[in-house]
């Protein structure tokens, strides 16, 4: 398999993991919204309420930075990373 195809395979793998985490916190947990809200979450808020106010939102921020770092590592591994620091 060519270097490019391997790079793309890894990139696709990372996409799947990223989308899976995204799915859980944007859709998955809200299937059980009513049940989860009975539980007390961080800082004492009802759990589902906390996810809609802060939890899911914060997780998305972290997820994107994590994704960007992983993708950079993949690019470096195959020598596809760009020069220049930003």
């Amino acid at each position, binding site marked *: 398999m060519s270097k*490019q195809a391997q*790079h*793309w395979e890894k*990139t696709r793998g*990372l*996409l799947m993991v*990223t*989308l899976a985490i*995204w799915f859980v*916190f*944007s*859709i998955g947990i*809200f*299937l*059980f*919204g*009513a049940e989860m*809200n009975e539980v007390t979450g961080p*800082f*004492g*808020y*009802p759990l*589902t*309420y906390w*996810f*809609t*106010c*802060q939890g*899911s*939102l*914060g997780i*998305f*921020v972290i*997820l*994107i*930075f994590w*994704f*960007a770092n992983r*993708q*950079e590592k993949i*690019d470096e591994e195959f*020598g*596809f*990373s*760009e020069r*220049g620091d*930003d």
Partner: protein
Amino acid sequence: MIKGNFIDNLPKVYGIYTGGFLAFIIIMAIAEQMGMSAKAIGICFVAFTVAIYAIIGYLSRTAQADAYYVAGRQVPTVFNGMATAADWMSGASFVAMAGGIYFKGYGYMALLVGWTGGYVLVASLLAPYLRKFGCYTVPDFIGTRYGGNLSRLMAVIVLTVASFTYVTAQINATGTIASVALDIPFQYAVYVGLISILLCSMLGGMRGVTWTQVAQYIVLIIAYLLPVFWISNKIGAGFFPHFMLADEVSRIAELEAQFGFVKNSAENLKEVPKGLAGITKAHSAVNATPWAFISLALAMMMGTASLPHVMMRYFTTPSVKAARKSVGWSLFFIFLLYSSAPMLATLSKLALIDPSLPTGIIGKSVSEVQAIDWYQNWNQANLMFISDFNGNGTVELNEFFMGGKAVVLATPEIAGLPYVISGLVAAGGMAAAMSTADGLILAIANALSHDLYYKIIDPKAETAKRLVVARVLLVVIGFAGATIAAMEIQGILGSVIWAFDFAMSGLFFPLVLGVWWKRANREGAIAGMALGLISGAGYLIWVRNGGSGFLGITQLTFGIFGSAVSLVSMVVVSLITAEPNAATQKMVDEVRVPSGKSILGKQH
């Protein structure tokens, strides 16, 4: 002035700017103590900030195509994040979101999740690849990836429909704020708002818009966070509201149980002025079915990834790597405001309904409440209303009505903050609406000037002529938007949500599959865009005219139907027609590799 080392000096420049703005707030506060009138403070806030944006817009003037269309592709990640956040957070986010949460609770918070979760899709599926492509506009990608004028034209049509739906709402919002702050009639205020918007974008295009949006973000985030923290401290709810309002949230639930949600008769509700609502839904309980919540969140997420004015912000970063990081920063800056909106809604609701707080009005006598200053002000502005339906002389939970905007606009006054805060909030709302309107008008004008005029009608046009056309279109679109906004056809929030649905119906799958599915071809993309947009719009019209809808898809989530049709038609048509030629397939391979030259040249 804005050249070369300007980029290196950005932190310093915006640091001084932020300091200057804070000093301005303090000066206004002192002026208020010395007897400056509320009206004069409001005018100063709006006039001062708009003048600054206009100066930035003037300093960013340019005669180069790549500066005009993509800010020279040298915007650093963090600053692009701020600009995107301002671009993204519209008048609706700023003025209406806390109000929506206040009235509708959980069901409405699907928008919070949707308008942030979409960025994960932007970062992972699209932004870095479109940046690698090196396009100026979103239709530029569609037109080059799939080839042919028809696919480009279809993308321009979808973009225009979605963005135009959105922009009228934003011009409407600038008009509303300008008319209140400057005390002029709405029909004129709309044009004052429009001229302010055009001052930022006309001379400098994307470059001007970028640097004004950063300035606007700083104003709007200060204007949102300062009152939230202040109110929280003032009513003793905790010095850091985000982590400390659990007791307040459970207190509201307790009060809701105590008062109960009494349903008003239709006859009683006729008395209530249009646009005002009472509290009828629980604050923190789950009050919507999973599908109602998820479908709205999903529509907003896919819409986020398809809206061109957001996508084109990532064309301005120096590299593909920077584009990815920049999406993270964008969402971080958006998070600062979005995570505060529910806190503001909580504080506002508690301040109003808790009888044990001095500001609480439930349980007080009707005449006492009618005598309160702020009640009279906001009643006059048609944003508050009480009526003694049961005739017992006291205000009940079901007898108090408020407009959605009042949560952001009136809470500082209710909590007893000085008027300078209200002036600040007006400036923040103006910044939010202006920055979004600028991004949208520019997205439409650029698509028409670059894709329709230059690429389709006159490919030999000189740069100077192209930029004149771009600017003329900017003004024309702005005026068309303002004219429609002045007619006040629909509410701000409703049309914003429709814009997301239109965008996802027509553009989501053609964009995503363009990168991720090599087999996608021109015929498939055209079918996907055309049938997606037509079926989405058709569904909306059907439901609006009394259609029953299906699968729980409402007029707010019609994009789910539109994009499903788009996906199916795109895949089917692609598979029954010939696969893309070798050159196109090679191009897709190139896009997938972050390093190396962009597909389209620097000047194209």
